[in-house]
């Protein structure tokens, strides 16, 4: 019995807790992608770099606050800097829309044109971020590191294994939960939110009903900026900030949005967790877990790791391909790609 408890604690520590945190970050990113897809009708390849841009501004303001000795005690200073990151990202995205996307919207361009334009914005953004903050790793998490330490938990329970929960992980989950609840309230209960859903459902009919496309587009970009900055900052606090990593995040984020059903925010959230759990469960070495579960002499010699963590993006890729082959509209029946 004790072995089973230990096995469970082990899995919680190395799989469940990290996967929930990572899944929440992917979910927030994927909701942003799905909103752009549903309302502006294109796949926004600049989303990963939008997250990086927002996070960069948050880091700069974090440094500023730290220099003046302003902090939030046990919580990371980045939370204080978050609103500034959001504001700058909103300004950036609205400027992009005015300068680039609006041009194509007026010409009623096909989605692939937007997609290529977003790739262009992605590269420009890539350059801007490297120019301002550099290509290196930045750690900006401060304050308390753990909510629960594994060691303390072991002593408390008297078990061989313990679960540690980092502040960044707890923060990620709580923030993601609040953001999602507020987002769904906005989309389902407010007039503006409903008009966005109407626009996503049937653009022509939305126009006939007098819904203003300019307003819908503006509100969408504001929501995307908020979601991207929060997702990026939470990811950066949990791991670290490196521009290239954020660019690479595009793959699991798109996989999440597509697995859940493009255009469907609920699906994007579910997709985020599906991808995060698959990625972590497939790259986790099960040696110790199996040792707890089987009699002593059955203990495996190898690591029992299905795939090396170097291949973690392959997992998103495989899931993406499987979904596109067998259920192109995703779990929650969004638009087919």
């Amino acid at each position, binding site marked *: 019995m004790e072995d089973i408890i230990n096995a469970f604690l082990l899995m919680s520590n190395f799989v469940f807790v990290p996967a929930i945190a990572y899944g929440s970050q992917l979910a927030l990113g994927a909701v942003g992608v799905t909103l752009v897809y549903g309302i502006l009708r294109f796949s926004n390849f600049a989303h990963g770099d939008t997250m990086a841009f927002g996070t960069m501004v948050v880091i700069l303001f974090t440094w500023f606050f730290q220099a003046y000795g302003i902090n939030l005690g046990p919580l990371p200073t980045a939370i204080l800097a978050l609103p500034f990151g959001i504001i700058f990202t909103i300004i950036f995205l609205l400027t992009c829309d005015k300068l680039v996307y609006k041009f194509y919207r007026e010409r009623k361009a096909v989605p692939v044109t937007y997609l290529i334009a977003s790739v262009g914005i992605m590269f420009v953004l890539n350059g801007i971020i490297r120019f301002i903050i550099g290509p290196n790793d930045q750690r900006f998490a401060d304050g308390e590191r753990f909510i629960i330490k594994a060691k303390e938990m072991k002593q408390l329970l008297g078990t061989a294994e313990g679960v540690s929960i980092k502040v960044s992980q707890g923060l990620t989950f709580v923030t993601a939960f609040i953001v999602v609840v507020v987002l769904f309230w906005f989309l389902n209960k407010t007039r503006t939110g409903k008009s966005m*859903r109407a626009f996503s459902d*049937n653009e*022509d*009919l939305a126009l*006939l*009903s*007098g819904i203003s496309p300019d307003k819908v587009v503006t509100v969408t970009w504001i929501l995307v900026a908020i979601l991207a900055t929060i997702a990026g900052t939470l990811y950066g606090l949990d791991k670290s900030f490196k521009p290239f990593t954020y660019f690479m995040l595009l793959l699991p984020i798109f996989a999440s949005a597509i697995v859940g059903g493009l255009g469907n925010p609920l699906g994007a959230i579910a997709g985020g967790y599906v991808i995060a759990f698959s990625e972590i469960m497939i790259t986790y070495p099960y040696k110790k877990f199996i040792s707890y579960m089987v009699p002593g002499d059955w203990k495996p010699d190898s690591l029992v790791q299905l795939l090396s963590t170097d291949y973690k993006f392959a997992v998103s890729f495989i899931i993406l391909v499987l979904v596109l082959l067998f259920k192109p509209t995703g779990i929650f029946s969004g638009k087919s790609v």
Partner: protein
Amino acid sequence: MTYLIGTGMTGGYGGTDILHNCSITAEKGEIAVIVGPNGAGKSTAMKAIFGMINIHTGTVTLDGEDISVLSPQARVAKGMAFVPQTSNVFPTMSVEENLEMGAFLRKDDINGTMEQVFDLFPILKDKRSQNAGELSGGQRQQVAVGRALMTQPKVLMLDEPTAGVSPIVMDELFDNIIEVAKAGITILMVEQNARQALNIADKGYVLVQGRNKFTDTGEKLLNNHEVRKSFLGG
């Protein structure tokens, strides 16, 4: 004074003209029906009146006001409502939300109008929280008409409202349309089911190749030998 007048309308989608000197008028509270063979420009004539296609000659007036150059959205604000033939609801939104979106331009209380729509289509009241995309074809048409009525329009334009619904539902829809007209709303309708549509029409227009071929009351058109032979199957 005729309420809605489209006179001498000539135009089309791009280079070639589809409508040629086509005229459609309707009095207040009247049901006007446009019928004709496939490709006669029935829907095009209606879209021209609503401003969805450009006419280079001819004018459209509503209640004496020239609205020829207004966009469809501006015409909605003037009191015209249009129900497209296909994709005329918001499929992932509930029936109630569909109606709310119909009234998007209104700033006043819309509950009264919503109750009127529910009185007209009682089934929608039961399904108010169900998504419009999950309804049957006939119910979806009711949502579409209901959405258009939410702006409290003076003119309701219907593009083949009975396309793809069963004959029983079609009769019901026509009954609903008569009721709407009795409330003083002008109805302009394009119909495939010419015989049934002319039955309820005050005025009928038979278009052929974008031109007015016959114009008369619905009853007279039904009794017109040539119309019967050519368009109503004897």
